[in-house]
Every structure is written in structure tokens, then in C-alpha cells.
């Protein structure tokens, strides 16, 4: 018995280690963001000047300072523009998805209409198509509607993504059919049934879709890269890599500030994130 518990502990440690190793990049970011200018320069100099010496790193900086934070928060209005660009994109996309995808999922889950199966299958296929396939078609529409180089060019196609429909659909499927019939007999309208019976049931699925969506759209790269030319419209994910190595401190702080909302969503929605992953794995 002793040996068995010991073995289990060893296995656990052996898996935990790589897991922690996966999270190490955060430590780099955090320590880099409070490192003084001088120290950063000292450790990253080989990278900048292509010297033979290896770079060094201290996870606990000798002279920790918050000067980079102060600089970015009080003296760099540019950063806020970009930050709010990102926020605007994500919030608009998620709200739009709520308005469009949730009712659609309800229709698929509850009403037996003609071509339902065919339509749903095509939704799944669309959900699985990568950006390469849809890039040109999106461009054609956006160009036709003269939306290129505006935030709408990113928001509108994303709002009609079929992925959240699929995720939320799972939640609605748990609605007992008898309950709906009973509500109808009691005189509830279809909209009423949707709001009072459907939404509470699907709240888990909706939250999953929101969490997964946030993480996805917060790090959006392909779409803004193709559809936004003007730098002042760029989201964080495009802006960050533009910061040069000479401003490493600034770069680290910007990365930490980018990370905060994502980590916040991740930690508070971890349960729904997992549910969402599992739900996206279920077949119809």
C-alpha cells in the first residue's frame, strides 16, 4: 500500500513538472516587467547586438522597479488606444454572437423544421473551416460593403461565426420536450419559452462560448492583419510584436497588461472553458 501511494506521488510529480514548465513564460513576463532598464539591457544585450555570449536572466531582479508600468500607464496614450481597440473588438463580437447565435441555437435545438439536419451539418462544416478558406470571401464582401479598414471588418464576420451556435446548441438540447409542451399549453408564447425556459438552461453553454470566444478573439491576428491597414485601429495582438527589443521593458509591461484580461477570464471561467471544450467535442 505504501509503495502504491509513493508511486502515485511520483507519477503526479512527473506530470506536474512539465505542467508548471508550461506556465514558465508568465514568470519571464512578470520578472521582465519589473526589471530596471539597465538590468534588462545587460541580460538581453547578446540578443540585440548578436554577441557570442549567452543571455542571462534573473527571475528575481536585483533592482525591481515599477517605472515601466508608470511610463506605460501615464505617458503612453498610444497603448490605451490599442488596448481599447482590442476591448472594443472582443466585446462587440461577443455581444453580437450572443444576439445572433443563441436564438439560432434555440431554433436548431427545439423546432423540427425541414432541412434542419442539412442546415446544421453545413453550420458544423463552416465552423471547421480555417481562415485561409474564408479569407477571400470575407474580403469580397467587406470590400463590397466598403468596410475594409474599419473595425466592422473584423466584428461582422466574427459575429456570424457558427462555432458559438454549436456550443450553445448543446445546452438547449437538455431541455425536456414535455416541459415546452406544458408551457405552451399554459399559454406561454414562443419568445417567453425561449427567455424563461431556454436561456437559464443554456447559461452554461453560453458562458462556455463566451470564455472560449474571449480567449480566441483577444489574440486575433490573421483577420486584423489582412483587413486593417491603419495602425491606429490595430488590436494589441498586432501592436505588441512591433515594439523593438531596445524597449524590452515597455514590451514586457505591455505583454503583462495584455495577459491580465485573458488570465482573468481564464481563471474565473475555467470550469466553463472545460465544459466548452468537451461540448465542442460531442457529435450531434
Amino acid at each position, binding site marked *: 500500500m505504501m509503495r502504491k501511494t509513493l508511486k502515485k506521488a511520483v507519477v503526479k510529480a512527473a506530470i506536474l513538472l512539465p505542467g508548471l514548465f508550461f506556465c514558465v513564460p508568465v514568470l519571464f513576463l512578470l520578472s521582465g516587467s519589473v526589471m530596471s532598464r539597465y538590468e534588462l539591457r545587460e541580460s538581453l544585450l547578446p540578443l540585440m547586438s548578436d554577441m557570442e555570449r549567452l543571455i542571462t536572466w534573473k527571475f528575481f531582479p536585483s533592482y525591481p522597479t515599477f517605472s515601466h508600468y508608470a511610463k506605460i500607464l501615464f505617458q503612453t496614450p498610444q497603448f490605451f488606444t490599442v488596448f481599447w481597440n482590442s476591448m472594443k473588438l472582443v466585446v462587440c463580437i461577443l455581444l453580437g454572437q450572443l444576439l445572433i447565435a443563441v436564438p439560432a441555437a434555440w431554433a436548431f435545438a427545439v423546432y423540427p423544421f425541414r432541412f434542419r439536419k442539412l442546415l446544421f451539418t453545413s453550420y458544423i462544416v463552416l465552423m471547421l473551416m480555417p481562415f485561409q478558406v474564408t479569407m*477571400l470571401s470575407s474580403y469580397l464582401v467587406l470590400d463590397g460593403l466598403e468596410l475594409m479598414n474599419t473595425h466592422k471588418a473584423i466584428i461582422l464576420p466574427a459575429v456570424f461565426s457558427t462555432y458559438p451556435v454549436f456550443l450553445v446548441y448543446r445546452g438547449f438540447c437538455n431541455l425536456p420536450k414535455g416541459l415546452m409542451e406544458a408551457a405552451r399549453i399554459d399559454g406561454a408564447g414562443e419568445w417567453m419559452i425561449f427567455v424563461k425556459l431556454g436561456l437559464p438552461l443554456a447559461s452554461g453553454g453560453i458562458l462556455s462560448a463566451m470564455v472560449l470566444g474571449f480567449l480566441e478573439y483577444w489574440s486575433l491576428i490573421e483577420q486584423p492583419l489582412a483587413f486593417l491597414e491603419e495602425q491606429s485601429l490595430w488590436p494589441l495582438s498586432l501592436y505588441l510584436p512591433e515594439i523593438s527589443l531596445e524597449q524590452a521593458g515597455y514590451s514586457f509591461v505591455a505583454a503583462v497588461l495584455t495577459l491580465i484580461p485573458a488570465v482573468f477570464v*481564464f481563471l474565473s471561467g475555467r470550469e466553463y472553458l472545460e465544459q466548452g471544450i468537451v461540448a465542442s467535442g460531442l457529435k450531434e
Partner: protein
Amino acid sequence: MQKKERQKLSKKHRFIWQSKTGTQKCVQTGRCFRQSSCIRQSRSAWIFFLLPSVAGVLIFVLLPFLDVIRRSFLTAVTEEWTGFHNYELIFANQAFRLAVRNTIRFTLVCLPLLIGIGLFVSVQLSRLKNVQFIKSCFLFPMAMPAATVVLIWKMIFSRQGFLNGGLAGLGLLSEGAFPDYMGTRASFWVLVFSYIWKNLGYTIVLWLAGIFAVSEGLTEAARVDGATQRQCFWYVIFPNLRGTLYTITVLSFLNSFKVFREAYLVAGSYPHESMYLLQHLFNNWFVNLELDKMAASAVCIGLVLFAVILLLQKLWDSDEKG
């Protein structure tokens, strides 16, 4: 009978009609209830729920895709009919072939690796208790936007980076012979690492869900019959995981297209040729407005993906029946 009264009656007697007789008619009045207004309303309500979504999908995805198919047979500027010329063009195009080759190679290396590692870790985890924290650790990279790790990847994988430092510390590399992982063939493996780092978490979550869905009674019975832990896994649990395998394959395959983010952020529009991916090519075509080539390859890729998805689904379906 007055309309109001009729409705009242119909509501009252629906239960009788449904539960006892099972016919379409009300016991008392003999009226057909499917005509009642509330049911008729419910039958058409789906249109209002579905319409915005379908309209959006039509406008933003499906109709323009038809246009893309049309354009793939036309020249880019003059829009003259050229038949399959664009297709011949892209298949003769060096960059396209390189990108396709890299993408296929990447998929063939990454998928088995990711699925295998994921399965191994999940099986170990499924035997332990309190694994929530470990799972979260593996999931965490999902929350790290690609843009935030660019600098760190540079610090790790460049010539003066930590990877070389670590290898030298172990005595595997001698000073002065440090490879640069970004600008050489090795950049492909940096990409593979990024992909696994990012995607291992959800693979583990999916595998674990699959493993826990196998009924405990089944495994217990096998254990009672004297199966070892290993036999129990290979003969009892594993055969039940085919559906999970299908899902993971499809999702990982599709996520493999997203590795462009890391590649682009680390190496820009023209990376080392070992990590030149389809998305790079598309972007470069896009900048040059070579829409005809884009159209032809979008159609090709779409078709291939469609076929792969259908094939995987068919394999899985036949497994379930058989």
C-alpha cells in the same frame, strides 16, 4: 362554437388527447388540434430565431464563397473565363507547393505527437486524485495570446538563448557551435513545440472526459476478472475512446492552421522556408492582389478539408455501427 371557447376547450383537453388516446383529435369536440393557433405559431417561430444567423452566414460566408468559386475560373483583372488555368498555375507555383508540403508535414508530425502525449498524460491523470490544478497548468497556454510569448520565444530559441544555454550546461553542446533555432531548418520544430504547448491542454481535457465516460462498472468487472491495469486500458477503455479520438483529431487538425500566429509573430511575412505556411502565402498573394490564385487555392483547400472531415466522420460512424 365561439373561437374563444374552442381555444379554451382545446387547452383543457389536450392532455386527455395526448396521453390517453394518442390520436390527433380531441375526445370531446372531435376537432383537430393541430389547427389550433398556438401550435401553428410555434411551428413557424423557428424562422424568427434562425433568420438573423442564416442571413448573416449567407451574406458573409456562403454567397461570397460562391463568388470565390466563380472567380477561381476567371482571370484576376479582366475577369475572362480561363477554365482550370488558375488551378494549373497554383499547382505549378513553387511557393504554393512549399506551403502545402510544409502544412502537410506539420500536420503529420504534430497530430500523432499531440494526440499521443495527450493520451499518455490523461491516462496517468485519470488514475490520480485532485488533478484540477495540473489540468489548469496545461490549459493555461490557451489564455496566453501569441503576441505575448514572442519575446520569450526569442529569448529561448535564438542563438544566444536559454535552450542553447541549457544544452551547453548539460554538456551536449560546445561553446561556439550554437545553432540558431529560428533562422534554420530547426524553426519547424520550434513551431511544433509552440503548437503542442498551446494545444496539449484541451487535448487532455477531451481525453479525460472520454476516459471518465467509460462506465466504471465495465473497468471494475475487468479488474475483478483479473485484468491488469494495462490490459484494462487497452482492451476495455481504449476501444471506447474512438469517438473522442475523432473529435480530437478534427479539432487539433483545425487548430494546426492557427499556428501561423506564432510563425508570423516570430519570423514575419517571409520566415525560413521550413515554416512557410499556407497563411503566409495567402497574405503575400493578398498584398499583391493576386485574387485569382487565392480563389483557386481557397477552393482546393476547402474541398480537401471537407473531404477529410467527411472521411473521418464516416470512419467513426462505421465504427459505431460495427
